[in-house]
């Protein structure tokens, strides 16, 4: 398993990560996916490796997925949740860095509300840094698990047509998906209200189309982003009714398009807002596969970033 090595030392984002590296991570992800379906799901790969999960923002799903991945690999796991308020209160990244030094950690999985936090951290520490979401910047393992799910479903990524629908500007998963999918040769179209599409985003190599029906017609798969309730009523999204009728992925809308469309959602779902229950729970949605693939792909990332290091130290 995984005798190939990747060239990156941290996983702070997917921008600039090569197709080869992503390919290796996905391939090993499939191997771990098999491990996860065995009766005994644990492998001794990372025995003696210390991993800290540092969550400056609540994200139960991502944290549990990482913890599970770390435990399945037999790593020593410490989890630390701090309220986002401590970030505001002036706990600087430097304090975080000093704590990591003091705890002698081999790897840090960090969730932080501010874009760039993981990259800044990687400049300061020797430990491997894995970005578990830095605000509206990147969330690379989410994009990797989305790609693993798409690869599993379609058997290929090159040339695959993926629509990303919703509030792109405030999404923590859109950018990583864009960078990752483009690196793998997929085609990406963004769709959402104009003011929630990041400025100049087409310069990244994606298409933008505000008509969700056209995007559905074009796409092989759509990734439906969560609409955050806090965006409602502050002038960004006037009402649930309007959003749902213009951009919501309803059964009725999908049935108008006579085609097989695969639907992803990073969760948690606002049923009846960006996606209807009938769609989310249907066979064309691969949302539950995404959950399992999340653990598998995180095992793969941890394995590739930490295994070579352990071997080097043993040598």
């Amino acid at each position, binding site marked *: 398993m995984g005798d190939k090595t990747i060239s990156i030392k941290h996983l702070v984002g997917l921008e600039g990560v090569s197709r080869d590296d992503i390919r290796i991570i996905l391939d090993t992800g499939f191997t771990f996916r098999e491990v996860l379906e065995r009766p005994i799901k644990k492998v001794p790969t990372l025995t003696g490796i210390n991993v800290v999960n540092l969550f400056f923002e609540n994200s139960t799903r991502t944290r549990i997925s990482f913890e599970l991945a770390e435990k399945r690999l037999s790593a020593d796991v410490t989890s630390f949740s701090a309220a986002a308020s401590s*970030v505001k209160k002036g706990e600087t*990244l430097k304090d975080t860095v000093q704590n990591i030094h003091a705890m002698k950690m081999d790897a840090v999985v960090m969730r*932080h509300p*501010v*874009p*760039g936090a993981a990259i800044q951290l990687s400049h300061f520490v020797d430990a491997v840094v894995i970005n578990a979401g*830095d605000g*509206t910047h990147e969330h690379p393992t989410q994009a990797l698990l989305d790609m693993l799910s798409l690869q599993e479903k379609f058997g290929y990524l090159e040339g695959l047509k993926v629509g990303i629908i919703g509030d792109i500007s405030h999404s923590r998963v859109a*950018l990583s998906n864009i960078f990752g999918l483009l690196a793998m040769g997929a085609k990406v179209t963004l769709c959402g209200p104009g003011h929630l599409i990041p*400025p100049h985003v087409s310069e990244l190599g994606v298409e933008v189309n505000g008509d969700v029906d056209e995007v559905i017609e074009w796409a092989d798969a759509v990734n439906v982003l969560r609409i955050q309730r806090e965006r409602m009523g502050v002038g960004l999204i006037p009402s649930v009714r309007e959003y749902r009728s213009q951009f919501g992925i309803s059964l009725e809308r999908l049935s108008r398009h006579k085609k097989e469309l695969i639907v992803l959602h990073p969760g948690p779902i606002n049923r009846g807002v960006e996606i209807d229950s009938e769609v989310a729970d249907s066979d064309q949605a691969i949302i539950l596969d995404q959950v399992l693939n999340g653990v598998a792909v995180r095992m793969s990332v941890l394995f590739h970033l930490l295994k070579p290091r352990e071997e080097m130290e043993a040598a």
Partner: protein
Amino acid sequence: MRDVSRTLPEEILITGGSIYDPATGKSRKSDIGVKQGVLVAPDAVQTDSATSIDATGCIITHGLIDIHVHFREPGREDKENLQTGARAALAGGFTRVCMMPNTNPPIDSPEVVRSLLEKGADLPVQINVIGAITREQKGVELAELLEMYAAGVVAFSDDGMPVENGQVLRNALLYARDLGIPIINHAEDTHLRADGVVNQGALSTRLGLPGNPVEAEASMIHRDLLLAGETDARLHVPHVSTALAVELIRKFKGQGVRVTAEATPHHLGLTEDTLTGFNTNAKVAPPLRAEKDRQAIVAALVDGTIDCIATDHAPHTVDEKEHDMINAPFGMIGLDSAVGMAFTVLRQAGLAVEQIIDLFTSGPAAVMGMELTPIEEGAPVELVIINPDENWTYGPEDIYSRSRNTPMLGMNFTGRVSAAITSKGWFCRS
């Protein structure tokens, strides 16, 4: 030798350089003497006992004037105070500065103005004070503008904060018109800027950071220009950062509106690309912009649309700048790198050394209504000696500020300050 603000020697002899006087626009090759802080003929000093400065290859000119500095006193003396600020200024070739009022408490009363002017009186650099436009810089009620003028302010500004309310700005313009001094408005529409921490564009999108659009600056400058035209008051636009703003200023200036403008060394020399990698030391307000904006600013300095260079020297502690991109404060220091950056960029753009010096001397003096000190025998000494051809790398040892927040460390510059001399102290590199 890291020695600044040392007591001025009894006699100094400066040899081998050429003298450029921005007040007259004339250059002459000549030695010059300084005796007890006053300019004298070279043969009026004792050659053997005088301190000698070899200015071969250098230009001797009027001390530089920076009309936009944040010296953080009172309130944040851990970042800078009048003394450390003056030290950094002198090492950067500046002999006069204008302090912005966003201190704590803000400089919004005649008492604070007087206390600062008193404290600054003995420093080797002339400290001028800019008073707040509104009480506590809140943008709501006018501060005591007339009282502060009587106490000695040279301009009014809420710098750091825009005056959002057009009526308040208009009232301030009318007051300032009658006093004959400029209003300086930090122009950014706060709603358009929103949480923006970097220039809005492809880069902000790539970095996932909230963007600050060029329209946030340009739309408020447009309003300010209209009001300046209507009131016939003097508007000074600080730290112009966008091509759009340059266009507006050019247009209104052409129509006879009494507007002046400044550009910072960082906006004329750096672009938003400096932020790739999330370097908080490059986080500044207004933000570093795109290359086309930078080029527009350079062109505006060349054609006179922008009148002067001002550093917006904004010291912050290392601890604060080690925050993440959202929580780190805006601003960078600029006094000790200003000449290096400006000379490097503007000479490449075709400006002569003398024209660049004008942007640092007669330009800012005109904005603030200041008289230049003549470079002639009998006048008090206020000189800077610049080697326009010296190549150097800006390093930590070149920082004389109390703070070190700058993204320019490691940059190569052509053009360097060799010495700066006033009647109250001097800086000499060698």
